[in-house]
């Protein structure tokens, strides 16, 4: 039982650590690192599904007849690209936020936003 699923459980632990960093962290860059961990552990979940006992990499070669499943690999290649695209956009946003708020701490930004909200209302 444990040997059947240990890979998934470790991956879930990693996923949840990343998720925790993402939602609990106060620093925007640390949030993004959390996001990366969260996503790449999901990638590992997929790749774990594709592994076949005794299989090798899905590149056809003489004398090999058991290959691991190529489909999860394809999906995750796409997902990695999506991940880096999101990361770079998020980092660009962080740079702009730093330039206009002069901070990258979430609580300080929210505080500044609250002040400007009140000014708009007044």
């Amino acid at each position: 039982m444990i040997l059947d699923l240990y890979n998934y459980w470790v991956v879930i632990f990693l996923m949840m650590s990343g998720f925790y960093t993402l939602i609990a962290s106060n620093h925007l860059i640390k949030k993004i690192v959390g996001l990366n961990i969260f996503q790449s552990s999901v990638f590992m979940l997929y790749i774990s599904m594709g592994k076949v006992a005794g299989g090798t990499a899905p590149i056809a070669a003489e004398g090999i007849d058991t290959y691991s499943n190529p489909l999860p690999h394809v999906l995750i290649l796409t997902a990695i690209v999506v991940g880096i695209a999101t990361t770079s956009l998020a980092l660009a946003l962080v740079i702009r936020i730093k330039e206009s708020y002069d901070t990258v701490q979430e609580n300080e930004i929210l505080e500044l936003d609250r002040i400007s909200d009140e000014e708009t209302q007044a």
Partner: protein
Amino acid sequence: MFAVTCLAILIVMGIALARAFIGPTVYDRILAVNMFGTKTVLFIAVYGFLTERPEFMDIALVYALINFVGVIAVLKFVERFPPPSAQSDE
């Protein structure tokens, strides 16, 4: 034989990882990451032989390359934006 080598490399990686955790200066971390990267290259190479499909040496080459460029990038940024204290980054 390859298995033993693989495990030895993994041990080295583990120790380098420990150095990366404790730091204390940014340079220690960079050193550890660099070492980790080189050992990753070796790991991939040996692992290919372990599983009897050594033709994926391209990955190891990429790692070696990325590792070098990564270290240079880190150094450039550390030089350009020196950390608050060179002695420890904590």
